[in-house]
């Protein structure tokens, strides 16, 4: 939920708090409490665009090309925004992503 500091832009229950605290923010981006918030990063391999007709014709074993090359980096997306890119690595018997680029969270 977006909470604005502009007068009249906050839900009524926040207006009381604001009046008593003279506009002082409760949280900042550096607040420790935010550090424990859990988020999920999605590792996206790529996209493929198919028409509905092609989609309905898909069978087990069908090979569909993605818009990514073999050595392209995998995108890590947070809430559908790219925040980093990395390469696929194998660690023991599992997949892993080694971070190569880090971007701004949009």
């Amino acid at each position, binding site marked *: 939920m977006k909470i604005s500091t502009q007068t009249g832009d906050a839900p009524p229950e926040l207006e009381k708090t604001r009046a008593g605290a003279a506009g002082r923010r409760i949280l900042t981006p550096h607040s420790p409490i*935010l550090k424990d918030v859990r988020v999920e990063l999605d*590792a996206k391999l790529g996209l493929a665009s198919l028409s509905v007709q092609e989609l309905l014709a898909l069978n*087990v*074993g069908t090979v569909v090309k993605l818009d990514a090359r073999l050595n*392209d980096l*995998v995108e890590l997306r947070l809430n559908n925004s790219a925040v980093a890119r990395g390469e696929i690595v194998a660690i023991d018997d599992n997949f*892993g992503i080694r971070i190569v680029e880090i971007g701004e969270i949009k």
Partner: protein
Amino acid sequence: MTYHARDWLPYGVMYREPVRRGVEAAVSDWARRWFASGRIGVSNLLVCSTDVRGELEGGAWRVTRQGIALDIPRRSLQSLVEKGLATSESGEQPTETDRQLLTEFERRLIDDLSVTLAAQLSLPHETAASAWGRDPFGGKGGLVVRLSDGNGPDLAALAIPFEILLPFCRASLGPSDSPKGDLEGLLHALASIPVMIEATLGHFDLGLSELQELAVGDVLLMNRPLGDAFDLTIAGGQRVLGRAEMQSANGSLAFVLQA
């Protein structure tokens, strides 16, 4: 609120076949059994959107157990008796016995027409006890059928509430019950619409502090064994289309659909 196609029908549907045909067949069958001349038939069909008091000529509608009502004015009843009993007007004052016979005749006449109509139009056989009332439609409207022998004013009026007649109309005139969510009929229009398929290798669950400290060179371990199939999603990741394995195809990354 969602309104389904079968929840409503326009009032005009009452004027159309097979409603008219069904009513006419029932009236014809009833008249043939009761009246030697058999000339009584439907002179008019009228849809009333609210109540039916304006159509009443007698003292009250007789509402049958099928919920259908008939209004037979006194003058018409005498005429119907003459037709039914093949008697002629004698000019004598009716006795109490005559009146009782007349009332019984009227009751049987009405009940039989109601049963005949219910059978013809597949209406519910019994909805409530028979009664007399000023508005058998309960203010909700219905179909008024005027009966005539072709000589002079109409003999009687028949009132069939919408709520009784609608199941028949829906079954014979309403839209079919197409299964919801079936896009079969729209395929020709949908065929070329592009759908984006996303190949997602997996997910990482981490805290904002870990995200903040993420640096180039760090490795995020995925809880997914090598060679395990990954998810294919559509609708912005909201729907999983299926599972697939990675493959190379002429230097590009590709997926192979799994069962």
